[in-house]
């Protein structure tokens, strides 16, 4: 069951690589939040109930509801156009994301370590690299933020792989989530909207040598 969920997560990455509208991105974020909720419940069987509930609460409240809702609010308030505006055509994106997934599979099959759960490793790494890829190929600041949140989802999957032995690390990951989301979205993206009517990365190109 865990494997099915994780593979669904990897498939959502392929979908996001060809998505055109910002709302599709948000729906995928919600979807990933629910998947992580399920994976957490199925994987972390050996930690205390309170801790498990805290982690699951975070995935559902934060990843699946609060962050997408807030991004939606920002998009509406600033009247951001709904196009994702990639630099590359969708077909190329699809090829690249597929390539990322395949190369992480090859990479993981070269690792000879019985402690490693390969599905977790492959899905986590391909999520992280897809997030990075989205950041460099999309034009809007808001899609950069979405790319960063996808990286965080990948990191979360990776932390679940060691979660049973070291629950402290999963809690740290949650701290990272909350810290980064609050800092980037809450404090910050609001302000960008106040100063820039159309938050396009081109407005933030003045600082150079």
């Amino acid at each position, binding site marked *: 069951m865990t494997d099915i969920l994780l593979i669904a997560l990897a498939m959502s990455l392929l979908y996001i690589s060809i998505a055109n509208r910002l709302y599709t991105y948000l729906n995928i974020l919600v979807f990933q939040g629910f998947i992580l909720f399920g994976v957490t419940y199925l994987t972390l069987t050996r930690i205390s109930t309170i801790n498990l509930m805290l982690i699951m609460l975070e995935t559902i409240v934060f990843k699946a509801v609060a962050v997408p809702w807030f991004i939606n609010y920002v998009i509406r308030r600033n009247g951001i156009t709904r196009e994702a505006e990639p630099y590359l055509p969708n077909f190329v994106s699809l090829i690249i994301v597929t390539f990322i997934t395949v190369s992480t599979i090859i990479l993981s099959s070269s*690792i000879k*370590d019985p*402690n*490693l759960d390969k599905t977790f490793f492959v899905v986590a790494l391909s999520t*992280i690299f897809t997030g990075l890829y989205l950041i460099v190929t999309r034009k809007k*600041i808001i899609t*950069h933020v979405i790319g*960063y949140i996808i*990286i*965080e989802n990948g*990191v979360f999957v*990776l*932390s679940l*792989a*060691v979660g049973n*032995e*070291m629950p*402290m*690390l999963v809690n*740290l*990951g949650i*701290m*990272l989530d909350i*810290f*980064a989301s609050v*800092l*980037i979205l809450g*404090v*910050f993206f609001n*302000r*960008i909207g106040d*100063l*820039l009517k159309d938050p396009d990365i081109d*407005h*933030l*190109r*003045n*600082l150079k*040598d």
Partner: protein
Amino acid sequence: MIGIFLTGALIISLGLFFNRNKFINYSLLVVFSALLVVFSLVEYNQINITELEFFKPDAIGVLLLFALCLVSIPVIIHGYRYIEKHNVDETPKSRGLFFGAMVVLISACSIVLLSGHIAVTWIFIEITTLSASALIYHHRNLRALEGVWKYVFICAISITFVYIGILFLSLSLKDTGIEDMSFDSLYANADKLNPFWLKLAFLFIFTGFTAKLGLVPMYTAGIDAKDKAPAPAGALLSSILMNAGFITIYRMYAVLTRTPLQHWADTIMIIAALLSIFVATVYMTRIKNIKRMFAYSSIEHMGLVILGLAAGGIGVYAAILHIFLHTLVKPTLFLQFNQIYWVYQSKSIYDVGNYFKYNKVGAILLLLAFISATAMPPSGLFISEFMIFQSLFEAHYTIILLVVLVLLTMIIWGFGTNIFKLLFTPHPTIDETKIPHISPWESLTQYLLLGLAVYLAYNPPVEFVALLKDAVKLIQ
């Protein structure tokens, strides 16, 4: 004492955030400075005693804590001058936020220096990002927004990298059955760690912390941040925050020196360091923004420090001495920048000139600071840089040494061209009636810092050398 310090710093920063009274604000800053001095002295006397489970003041931590203390107090004084003189549109609220964030940044950096656990270090590094972004965004305009946006975003990614590194580190611990991730436990069990995961962990943690240390690949965040932050904040970002990044890389490297992976780690660090010096050279020779020039000079010095560390032998001693002296020297340039700005109202090299005529004391200081920052004798950095070169030669990295020497010569040329234009070239378009009189006292703390850097390099006190030697012992 760490508990007391943390509580005190928290109360003081909250007081600064919420209190609008000028007198109380500044008294709180005085109290904080006193607390910082007492804290450093107490930690010096409690060296190598674990406190609150996660903190252990080792020699390098205490050494850099002293540097932090020496720099923070002048920075607070200049922060006061900056707020009082520079800005007509300061409100009690913006002042409170500025000083509150400064106190949080200084305390978080000092806790990072003393932390004995990688997860705790990581948490406090997050706090430094938070407080630094408040400082960078002090002027609430579009440019500042751009600077802080880039800083926050790159720091968020780098901190994620560090987190991934910590996860890999825990994977490397899995076989050994150890769950304690404190540095002491890592040192003790280094040979039992799984080398593959340890490699990956070091790679990610190193890459992540380059955002704070200021090396290729993540150095870009710091440059924009130092450019847009008010100069006193820039002084903090280019000294104590870099030390916070350095100390964690140093401790992680110390783990790797206890394994057969040391040579591999050396290679990684040499590549990053050489690229950093190269990038610094490229920008220093053609840069026209004075503050960014200072920022790139820091990148160059951090490259040298990491090069010394990787060369080993006397290089490790030299690297720690270098970063200590750099912590004293670099803030003088940033703190002096305010006076330049008062005279010319610009930070472009095209708008400045003939500084000797308008501010003699400041101009002499700038000349001395230039000599110090480029490590020409009698600068203190000359000693440490010379030892780094020596260690590179002894480790048979002759080609690297030659490349570095050529790059450094170009940096001195680029830096010198701009500084001498600022100091000596007459500038016809300046309206001399508008230039304010600048009191010589404004430069006093900078002279003291530069003098101290020279004194500590040429005539180091016994205690200082003992601490340095203790700090080197971490690397085996």
